[in-house]
């Protein structure tokens, strides 16, 4: 007489799905933060007439220490034009938005070469400013 072997089931516990999802989310959040520039210390200049800005293809920032960053990574001003040309590629006019975030105490020696570089790459320049009256610093 043959005894039937008991079948072993190997199922993934369903309550672990939440943890798996959580870890995946953390992974993607860290990946996204690599292009983020929220770690850069800068204060925007203020202006009366500011408008909502459309989403950019690239962001150039000059921080409180007058260092230049492209999409959150430090870059020399003379390298900006070349890198921006690569990023903007063949995007049509009107969709080549480049955000320029300049610390309010910057001088012409800091921001003019950057503006010239954006212009050289054919970017649509948008100065990121704070509406007059608001006080929160970035």
């Amino acid at each position, binding site marked *: 007489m043959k005894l039937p072997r008991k079948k072993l089931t190997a199922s993934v516990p369903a309550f672990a799905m*939440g943890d798996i999802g959580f870890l995946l*989310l953390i992974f993607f959040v860290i990946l996204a933060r690599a292009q983020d520039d929220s770690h850069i210390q800068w204060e925007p200049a203020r202006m009366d007439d500011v*408008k909502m*800005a459309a989403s950019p293809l690239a962001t150039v920032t000059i921080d409180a220490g007058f260092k230049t960053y492209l999409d959150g990574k430090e870059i020399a001003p003379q390298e900006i034009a070349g890198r921006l040309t690569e990023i903007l590629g063949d995007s049509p006019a009107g969709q080549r938005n480049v*955000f320029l975030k300049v610390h309010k105490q910057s001088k*012409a*020696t800091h921001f003019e070469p950057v503006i010239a570089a954006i212009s050289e790459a054919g970017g649509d320049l948008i100065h*990121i*400013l704070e*509406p007059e009256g608001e006080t929160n610093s970035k």
Partner: protein
Amino acid sequence: MKFKRGKMLIDPPACASSDIAFTLIIFFLVCAAVQPETGMSQALPKTEEKSEKREQSQNLEVSITPTSIILNGSPLKPDEFATRIAAALKAKSRDTDKIVVVKSAPQTPYPLWLAVSQAIDDAGGILTLELESEKTIQVR
């Protein structure tokens, strides 16, 4: 005779805590992403290098220093500049004549530069930057 009712334990299921954390993260991510940015767009002609030899042009020239704004050689106060540039550009009909060449002193602050460029934009001018290029020449 009275029977004692056993106390009922109401523990939240532990396996749900990760789902709660997941939902909280989504909530904070959405909050962070929604914060809009405000700014001012600026049209700039493409940069090109120009030799020192310049053609005689009818373009307006603006020099900005930390303390003054000079329009075609005459110093103006910042609040005076907007009206003067608007008047000067009103007389120009061709696009090529509406080019305003802006030259800034190295110590010009960003807010002042922005105010000047906005005044030029509002007056219908085409802002062009004049930058001095640096060249290192080795002398033997």
